[in-house]
């Protein structure tokens, strides 16, 4: 189910502004890869190029290659909709559909994509909510609105929604930045559990979190304000945090800037 992602020479633009430049990396399957770096260095932008969400912003475009195993995601015959179905995403701010109940939120991806029988759907919704560590909290109120949950619960609902469509890769953009320590812990546990089945990429500003949950870490930086962001280095998380190859990485991790 989980697949490897390979990126080569990737640039991303917002209109004429180049936000990231020349990024190449390999993201291993069944592992957690963390992106760290100072604000504005293009972590979110890069993450969004991995499932072709970047181009939904008017004027935004991408150059370079992203391959999922043997498929070129930016190939001319590739349907971006199917890419997003294969590579799911969880956003920084929880964004459940306000018009839908908890159940419908989780079922949304399947329902909106075609016909699934009700009994099948019940099973998938339960599995996904259990997978997101939310089942016990909401099993008695599945028909209530998803927007009525707490922030942490909403974020786990969004994770359940993302895994309900059975993606092969899960991208998470600062999924814990708006959450309390307990919800954060719940989501970190969840990430460790999910990596058995998925390829997971997580953007985080929390060094401890990166150290705790990830197997590999990529450090991004930008030379100066207004310059495009670049990948500085990527390695085993333990190596990045104990013995990084680059001075900039060490400075960032030890809190000397950023």
């Amino acid at each position, binding site marked *: 189910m989980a697949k490897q992602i390979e990126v080569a020479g990737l640039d991303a633009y917002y209109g004429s502004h180049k936000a990231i430049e020349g990024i190449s990396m390999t993201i291993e399957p069944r592992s957690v890869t963390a992106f760290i770096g100072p604000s504005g260095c293009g972590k979110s932008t890069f993450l969004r190029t991995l*499932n072709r*969400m970047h181009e*939904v912003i*008017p004027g935004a475009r991408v150059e370079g290659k992203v391959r999922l195993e043997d498929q070129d995601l930016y190939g001319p015959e590739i349907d971006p*909709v*199917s*890419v*997003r*179905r*294969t590579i*799911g*995403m969880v*956003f920084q*701010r929880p*964004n*459940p*559909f*306000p*018009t*839908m*109940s908890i159940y419908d939120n989780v079922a*949304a*991806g399947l*329902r*909106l*994509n075609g016909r699934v029988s009700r009994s099948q759907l019940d099973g998938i919704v339960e599995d996904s909510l259990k997978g997101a560590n939310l089942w016990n909290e909401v099993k008695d109120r599945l*028909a*209530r*609105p998803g927007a*009525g949950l707490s922030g942490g619960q909403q974020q786990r609902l*969004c994770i359940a*929604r*993302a895994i309900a*469509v059975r993606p092969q890769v899960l991208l998470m953009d600062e999924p814990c930045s708006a959450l309390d320590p307990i919800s954060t812990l719940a989501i970190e546990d969840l990430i460790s559990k999910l990596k058995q089945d998925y390829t997971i990429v997580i953007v985080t500003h929390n060094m401890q979190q990166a150290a705790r949950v990830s197997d590999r870490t990529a450090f991004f930086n930008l030379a100066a304000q207004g310059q495009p962001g670049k990948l500085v280095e990527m390695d085993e998380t333990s190596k990045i945090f104990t013995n990084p190859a680059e001075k900039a990485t060490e400075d960032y991790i030890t809190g000397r800037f950023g």
Partner: protein
Amino acid sequence: MTVQTGIQPISATRRAKDRLVQALVYLAFALAVIPLVSVLWLVVKNGAGRFDMEFFTHSMRNIGARDAGGGAYHAIIGTLEQVLLASLIAVPIGLLTAVYLVEYGEGGRLSRIISFFVDVMTGVPSVVSGLFVLAFWILVLGMSFSGFAGALALSILMMPVVVRATEEMLRLVPRELREASYALGVPKWRTIVKVVLPTALPGIVTGVMLAVARVAGETAPLLLTVFVTDSINNDPFNGPQMGLPLYVFNQTILPTDVAVDRAWTGALTLILIVMLLNLVARLITWWRSPARRR
């Protein structure tokens, strides 16, 4: 003046200003409500006299200006049919236009042109829309006066209101919701149908109801397109019909008290119909919303 620092009690002048502004706001509210309440009260008081069974079951056929009795059945039927037909024309076109402008136009040339013409249409006086239908539909194409011709004129008035209201509501739907849906691998059109439109629905319904309320009271375009009749005509596609605004107008210009009483009741009925439609629309949106289960 010395600059004071630290936490202090609210100063007396700020308290006074607060009171003054509060009083002004209440006053403005009262001033705005006075005409509304007085109109309602007047219409209810004067309209209650003829608010009887006969009024809702009879037409004005064979009832002279001096005769008591008679009713507005034919006008009620006419108004309901004309407004329904006008909505059937204007709401889909208006909705689709707004969806195009917000979701697909992206500030391009075509969307700016459409936007400009919607603005122009907003400014069209109602009598002009009636004249247009009269000239084009009835005189050039040779169609007869009919409820449908009236509905055409009304739909011209409704369309820009629906477009603008829907546009505004669609723009209020946050980007994140659309992105959440795209990220699940949902195509754009399904995202619009299943996520964007339902989220904006209550606002769109309000906009449509405002448009309905606006055209339900239009007299001039009807005068030129549905003509006038005292008899019941259930078929909106053939022959002259009546409408409540026309009925009110027709009865007020008669010099007798019985006629004027009928006009008041006609006006009251019109208000009630608009209110009832509003209520039904709101019930439907409420029924569909998850808030019901909260």
